[in-house]
């Protein structure tokens, strides 16, 4: 997984709340087979004017079309668990999303893809939103857990230590579990099987299940 250490970029201000994953990545595109290229469909319905004259969606408006940070309101990424919402953001180039609150599954999906999701309280959130709207770049320093403005203003953010380490080191979580905890999983299974055998399908049950 791609590491996340320090990122400096303009931040796209998206002053909206309740942007659910259906808005971030509409369901009909879930049929697309690859992760690559999904940035095309990011916020598809909002991006009706991508290159023409007149008002455009913030991610199609320079300099924010190159933004690697997205700043948005509360309840971002609620709804469907589709990881495509994160893949599409990442494919577009977004490495960090800052919001007042997140849908929980979306939040969990971010870290799996090297995307840093930051929750800020109201005052800090508004300050970051204003700074983004100015078009001045922000710096996100994950090791220090800080957001820095060009003028030197520094805001701290909270991050769970495991999530932080996973991002900083670009850890392969599955590999870690397999090497560090594989024996414990096997021991747990043996114990559970002895105590609660009904949790393990019998051969006959599996056979019935496999019968068309």
């Amino acid at each position, binding site marked *: 997984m791609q590491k996340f250490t320090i990122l400096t970029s303009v931040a796209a201000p998206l002053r909206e709340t*309740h942007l*659910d994953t259906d808005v971030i990545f509409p369901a009909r595109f879930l049929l*697309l*087979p690859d992760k690559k290229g999904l940035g095309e469909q990011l916020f598809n319905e909002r991006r009706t004017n991508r290159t023409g004259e007149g008002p455009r969606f913030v991610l199609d408006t320079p300099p924010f079309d190159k933004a690697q940070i997205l700043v948005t309101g509360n309840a971002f990424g609620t709804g469907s668990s589709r990881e495509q919402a*994160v893949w599409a953001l990442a494919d577009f180039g977004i490495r960090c999303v800052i919001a007042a609150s997140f849908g929980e599954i979306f939040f969990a999906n971010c870290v799996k893809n090297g995307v840093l999701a930051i929750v800020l309280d109201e005052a800090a959130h508004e300050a970051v939103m204003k700074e983004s709207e100015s078009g001045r770049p922000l710096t996100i320093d994950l090791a220090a857990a800080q957001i820095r403005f060009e003028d030197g203003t520094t805001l701290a953010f909270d991050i769970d*230590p495991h999530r932080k380490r996973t991002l900083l080191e670009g850890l392969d979580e599955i590999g870690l*579990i397999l090497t560090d905890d594989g024996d414990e999983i096997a021991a747990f299974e043996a114990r559970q099987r002895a105590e609660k055998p009904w949790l393990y399908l019998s051969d006959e049950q599996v056979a019935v299940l496999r019968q068309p």
Partner: protein
Amino acid sequence: MTGKTLYDKVWDSHVVKQYDDGSALLYIDRHLVQEVSSPQAFDGLVEAGRPMRRPDKHIAVADHAVPTRLRHLPMPDGLASRQVSRLMRNVEKFGVPYIDMNDRRHGIVHVIGPELGFTLPGVTLVCGDSHTSTHGAFGAIAFGIGASECETVFATQALRQRKQKRMRVWLDGSLGVGVSVKDIILALIAKIGTGGGFGYAIEYAGSAVAELSMEARMTLCNMTIEAGSRVGMVAVDGTTMDYVKGRPLAPAGELWERAVAEWRDLRSDDDAEFDREIRLDVSQIAPHVSWGTTPEETVPVTGQVPDPAAEPDPARRARLQKSIDYMGLAPNTPLRDIAIDRVFIGSCTNGRIEDLRKAASVVEGRRVAAGVSGIVVPGSASVRIQAEAEGLDRIFKDAGFEWRDSGCSMCVAMNDDRLAEGERCASTSNRNFEGRQGKGGRTHLMSPEMAAAAAVMGRLADVRQLKG
């Protein structure tokens, strides 16, 4: 020592390892696999050259993208058929049990898991789908995960998780005539908001819950995710046992007795403590209908579209205006004056036999209004077969509804069942997000009875006025 909540009991019995930072490695007993969230998870295994740890802990089914008519024909070539064949190739390769769309056991993951007895009391169950909360109706910890976590479960049968805070929602009193559990959950979401459950596992308790059937409890837990919580649970009681007994994958004989002895304890202890408690008197709840584009934008059917001008907070005012514009409504319009074009009865929220019975009881002897088209999509083949045995299909067809095969259908519009731009739909599904039922489509969420009433009246309607 204080007692334990139901959530704590199930959690504690699945901890493989406790980490220093407070998170735990949780063993996962059951994994439901569908075509949309699994391809990248299977690919991940292949790329890393990892085996699947236990193929017998998974069941796969294609429910989102499959057509709901002409199923005996091959699916027309396209992205949907390719997604379904990709799932078939993957399950074949990894030896995962698979249920074909023409199998009598086919259906939406959250309908067939319980039907098969794959969902059992006290298990941990996951699926790459947010409505996995449904299975919490069985006193299970069941939650939705993303594709990366599906891959983790394939490879390790475990997930690193943090324990949630606990919220208890007390539901007391008896439901009025024409009011259903869908109205309870919509009223709860309207009250606490789509973020009200962030960080919590919710347990539903109280006399009204004890009276609910398993189907109704599933509806309740299903939409818990719309209140922001990944986990919704109900304690195990006689109703739970009666439902589970005799299911193909449920324990039988001596094992059944042993399991039941354990399951009896799957309830919160009397002195268990919760971080938050909410009480709702369900006898005060009227049928609810969503008017906007998030499930919290829901009001009693006797109400009206809100007026943004009356909202002092600028951010909230902007949000209301956005929803009103998308929905093509005018402020202060009484809900019952809103005409509809389409009706969808189905989904993992309301596609079970009880739901179809209730809708049919409203439709019987009536006709779908002129200019309105409606489809009824059973949540599973076994629901369809049962409904046909009871003659419900005839009632729907006689009224002018189309009667379909099982699947997600117009809940998510990934097959060919979808709204056209600007069309307005009375829907028994769970999400009224922009574009959810098709690009530019407008969704009003409600119960099966209310959707049936809307179909007959051609507009949003109060089923209580129709019934008498």
